[in-house]
């Protein structure tokens, strides 16, 4: 059978799909992240050179992993001649396997996720490592996504990898006793990546779609690797349901559109169907957690053909449940928005005013919204101005300026 022509885009696609798996297998084999990354890069360089002429191997992932393993051994041998430190490692691994040979493709990505999201690493380092090692994003791409100078991001990655090596952060899936808290850290990292894409904390744009897509890709991977953890499924469902509204969340000019004002025909029905099916599946397990409940809240919104048809009583009940499993003033703030729909803005404002969230832009924006509904225009304008001072991205600020305009036209 003649091999199909191989395009650079095919190799790029395989890189994105298989990089994390290849790095995870190499880290497992050699216990050295830098060596693993370099060897996998070498293997892809080799693929770019060979595949266009030779055609795609039967198992591209297997070819990459075998080639990378051989390259890693070459590197260790070179090191071993200079430095006895690597001599034993080189001796332990046998080279010379033919990458064309079929071999089962192992997957050690679950271990790698837990290493990247180890609590001994800071959150920023966890996020950067996860995107780098599992997502295969370049340092420049990660730096750009988080609006950090590239040398800063490079430094962050070097430091994190250095700590994993020197402090010997283990490369394993935590024991059952540790799993709930350790998995919580992994889910938090994925959700943080998603949220940074969904509502950027700084910059010109509200949405950075690349980060959302990457978080969903990693969420799918985790759901596949840990099918029995309902919170993993819950987080994936939550991200899919939020993502389903992306096209409707901004105007063509990039301005923010509130949920109530969104054109629901622009919601992505396929993502909604998938997200809702996942919500039903994980809730059936009877082990609700914060991600599952937030997903369920989003599923209720997705059910409503228009904003007026929203089952707000159901949403208030879900927020009550969310407050019992993860009490936080931010959850209480969102609950108040639902309360406003059921019991009116005065009841909601009383709840909001009791919250200690004055540093949070949404607290002021929601107060402004409720005060406006109550006809307390001057106070509403003051609240919107407080929100404006604290909003993270340009789209949010433009929205708030619009609201201020409506309240005091001519100013």
């Amino acid at each position, binding site marked *: 059978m003649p091999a199909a022509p191989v395009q650079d885009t095919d190799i790029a696609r395989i890189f994105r799909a298989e990089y994390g798996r290849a790095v995870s297998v190499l880290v497992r084999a050699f216990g050295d992240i830098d060596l693993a990354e370099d060897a996998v890069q070498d293997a892809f360089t080799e693929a770019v050179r060979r595949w266009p002429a030779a055609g795609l191997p039967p198992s591209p992932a297997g070819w990459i992993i075998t080639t990378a393993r051989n390259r890693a051994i070459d590197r260790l041998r070179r090191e071993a001649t200079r430095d006895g430190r690597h001599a034993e490692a080189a001796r332990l691994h046998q080279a010379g396997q033919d990458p064309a040979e079929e071999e089962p493709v192992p997957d050690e990505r679950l271990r790698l996720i837990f290493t990247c999201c*180890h609590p*001994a690493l800071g959150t920023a380092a966890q996020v950067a490592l996860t995107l780098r090692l599992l997502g295969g994003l370049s340092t420049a791409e990660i730096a750009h996504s988080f609006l950090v100078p590239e040398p800063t991001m490079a430094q962050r990655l070097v430091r994190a990898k250095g700590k994993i090596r*020197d*402090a*010997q*952060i*283990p490369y394993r899936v*935590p024991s059952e006793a*540790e799993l709930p808290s350790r998995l919580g850290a992994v889910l938090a990292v994925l959700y943080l990546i998603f949220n940074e894409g969904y509502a950027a904390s700084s910059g010109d744009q509200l949405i950075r779609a690349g980060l959302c897509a990457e978080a969903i890709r990693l969420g799918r991977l985790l759901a596949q690797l840990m099918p029995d953890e309902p919170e993993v499924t819950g987080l994936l469902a939550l991200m899919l349901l939020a993502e389903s509204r992306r096209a409707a969340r901004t105007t063509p000019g990039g301005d923010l559109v509130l949920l109530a004002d969104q054109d629901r025909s622009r919601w992505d029905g396929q993502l909604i169907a998938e997200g809702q099916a996942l919500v039903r599946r994980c809730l059936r397990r009877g082990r609700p957690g914060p991600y599952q409940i937030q997903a369920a809240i989003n599923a209720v919104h997705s059910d409503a053909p228009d904003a007026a048809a929203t089952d707000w009583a159901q949403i208030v009940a879900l927020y009550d449940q969310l407050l019992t499993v993860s009490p936080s003033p931010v959850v209480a703030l969102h609950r108040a928005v639902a309360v406003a729909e059921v019991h009116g803005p005065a009841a909601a404002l009383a709840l909001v005013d009791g919250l200690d969230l004055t540093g949070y832009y949404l607290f002021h924006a929601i107060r402004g919204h409720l005060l406006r509904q109550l006809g307390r225009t001057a106070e509403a304008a003051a609240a919107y101005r407080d929100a404006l001072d604290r909003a993270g991205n340009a789209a949010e600020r433009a929205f708030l300026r619009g609201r201020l305009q409506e309240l005091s036209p001519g100013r």
Partner: protein
Amino acid sequence: MPQYLLSVYQPDGDPPPPEVLDPIMASVRAWNTELRAAGAWVFTGRLHPPDTATVVRVRDGGTVVTDGPFIEGKEHLGGFTVITAPDLDAALAWARQLAEVTTLPIEVRPAIAGA
């Protein structure tokens, strides 16, 4: 096997009264016994307060001695233990126990192998 330095940081000022301190020290001794039984213990040091510290420097070939600790802070290094552990998780598990019995933060630092 890697070694880790577990440092106990305590607030400056007078130590707690004996009725508080004594049970804590008994728990720390029990922790030490457990550490030795597990074969993880390497070395332990308990320190006098930082106002007993002296810093020595060499300047232009001469010795300069100053009274007091090198770093002034609201907390100081009160004691330390060096342990061996297979990896950071194992070291953190020992540190967690020590933090629990002392009610103080424990800093865990890996030692450079063969140094």
